């Protein structure tokens, strides 16, 4: 959450989207390629104004496909580079992201999510969780996915994203949403880094000046054995990321029996609901994944060890991250889901009602009916509360 221990004069009030842009420049990003789409447009607009002034290049590409391929090119040449879009636009970038992963080219991709599928809507959503965490494009790959829940984290995590991208030679995603992108909160901006002071990239195709053999950046391997080798090597890096980069915030989890798991915008709503549940004497806590890939499974293990018996995944979708919660919980506790979709946000009261249901052993509704008919899809059997299954 916003840190109000910092002196007031160090803090500025900014929109989340603008903070992503400002903090990226401070992290040494000097190239931005994008295409406008609500609700992330302020990011590109800010870059257009400021990036040329610090010697960078802002380019509004002719399409999202072009933009991601420009990112591929600049990243291959060793630059800190990013692109940003919102859900439908991010789908268009999927081929380029896969090429970057296949060629081990670092770069930062921002998705300020809106409702889907298709053109969907423009209100906040988290329905691209699967797309982000199960690989944005085709092929055998993952990428680090960071999920900010405050404007301050927009700054902190995009700063981190550039470092992770370079360290592990991988595209890295910031998975934000319309709420965090559009809102203003106080933020302490990170210090500006001169790109010249960043670690060098001996693999980059930035000219060999006759001093070394030429570098090749490529994602095409026609020999199956060679392709298998490169994939295995990449997955060794993924194991390192899994082992060292899991991040999460725990709130009131020390003695929690009911743990709400939520990221980004949903975690803001869940935070209020968990506080309200505590005020009613319910031992509830919040586990907020900051990295969605790697998923913070170690933290889930720990809260189970501490006595958590019931998990409730709260998301702005029809139930996506809940699958990762189930994988991490591995049958040691019950897992339920509550979500709203299409850009509808649950109220803290709705989430609180689900926590109360769990506390009293009643079944959790997977979603409140928002339509006139009040009907939602019938809950699949495995979404029933553990109590209903007699566990």
């Amino acid at each position: 959450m916003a840190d109000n221990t910092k002196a007031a004069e160090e803090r500025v009030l900014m929109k989340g989207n603008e903070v992503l842009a400002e903090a990226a420049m401070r992290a040494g990003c000097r190239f931005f390629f994008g295409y406008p789409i609500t609700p992330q447009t302020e990011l590109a607009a800010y870059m257009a104004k400021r990036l040329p002034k610090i010697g960078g290049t802002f380019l509004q590409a002719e399409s999202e496909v072009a933009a991601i391929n420009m990112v591929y090119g600049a990243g291959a040449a060793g630059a800190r580079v990013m692109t940003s879009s919102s859900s439908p636009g991010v789908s268009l970038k999927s081929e380029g992201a896969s090429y970057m992963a296949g060629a081990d080219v670092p770069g930062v991709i921002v998705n300020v999510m809106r409702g889907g599928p298709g053109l969907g809507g423009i209100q906040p959503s988290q329905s691209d969780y699967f797309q982000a965490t199960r690989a944005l494009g085709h092929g055998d790959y993952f990428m680090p996915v960071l999920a900010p829940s405050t404007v301050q984290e927009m700054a902190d995590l995009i700063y981190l994203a550039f470092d992770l991208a370079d360290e592990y030679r991988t595209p890295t995603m910031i998975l934000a949403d319309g709420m965090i992108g559009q809102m203003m909160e106080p933020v302490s901006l990170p210090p500006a880094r001169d790109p010249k002071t960043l670690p060098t990239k001996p693999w980059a195709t930035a000219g060999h000046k006759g001093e070394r053999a030429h570098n090749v950046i490529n994602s095409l391997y026609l020999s199956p054995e060679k392709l298998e080798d490169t994939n295995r090597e990449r997955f060794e890096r993924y194991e390192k990321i899994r082992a060292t980069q899991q991040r999460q915030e725990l709130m009131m989890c020390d003695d929690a029996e009911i743990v709400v798991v939520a990221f980004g915008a949903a975690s803001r709503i869940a935070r209020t609901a968990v506080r309200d549940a505590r005020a009613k004497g319910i031992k509830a806590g919040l586990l907020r994944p900051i990295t969605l890939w790697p998923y913070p499974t170690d933290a889930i293990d720990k809260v189970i060890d501490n006595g958590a018996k019931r998990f409730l995944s709260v998301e702005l979708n029809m139930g996506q991250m809940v699958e990762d919660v189930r994988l991490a919980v591995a049958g040691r506790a019950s897992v339920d889901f509550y979500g709203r979709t299409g850009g509808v946000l649950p109220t803290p009261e709705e989430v609180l009602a689900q926590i109360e249901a769990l506390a009293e052993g009643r079944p959790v509704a997977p979603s409140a009916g928002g339509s006139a008919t009040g009907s939602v899809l019938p809950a699949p059997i495995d979404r029933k509360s553990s109590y209903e299954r007699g566990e």
Partner: protein
Amino acid sequence: MAEDFNHELLCVLSGFGGQGLLFAGKVMANTGLLDGRHVSWMPSYGPEMRGGTANCSVSLSDEAIGTPFITKPTAVIAMNQPSVEKFGPTIVSGGTMVIDSTLAMNGAEGVDLADGVNVFAFKATEMAEEAGLKGLANIICLGKLWAETHFCTRETLDAALAKCVPPSKQHLLEPNRKALQMGIDL
């Protein structure tokens, strides 16, 4: 922190696009920034901004803020009738509602308000125009809300207003100050 102001304000500011509610909300948010408090400012975006209830939610608190979308405001500024009707019923008991009755001619009449909601309805747009402060009805309403809720100290309020008027529009600072005072004196 001084004890002479309210420690939590959850305010929705709503009206037609162009009435300056987002700006008034920014002034409010900046008071929290200046005082080192927790603050969030969340605008509506998309088609709502072109319709009757362009709004923003401003939370000022000594505690970390959960959802920035306010479902149970402690205060509302409503500058047109759709805003009164949409947000009036959401105000918590004992909350405050400031209505510009130039456009919201029916005020809170017929709106289902919680017990003890204090309603202050006055013709802010008309007053602003008569005082030569066209376009500053938003700030008059802000002044009235501050006078009723004391969401920060007066010094902080003045400093936040000065901070929000951009350097290129310094000639508008004095009229803004006048409008603020007008609302406070109501």
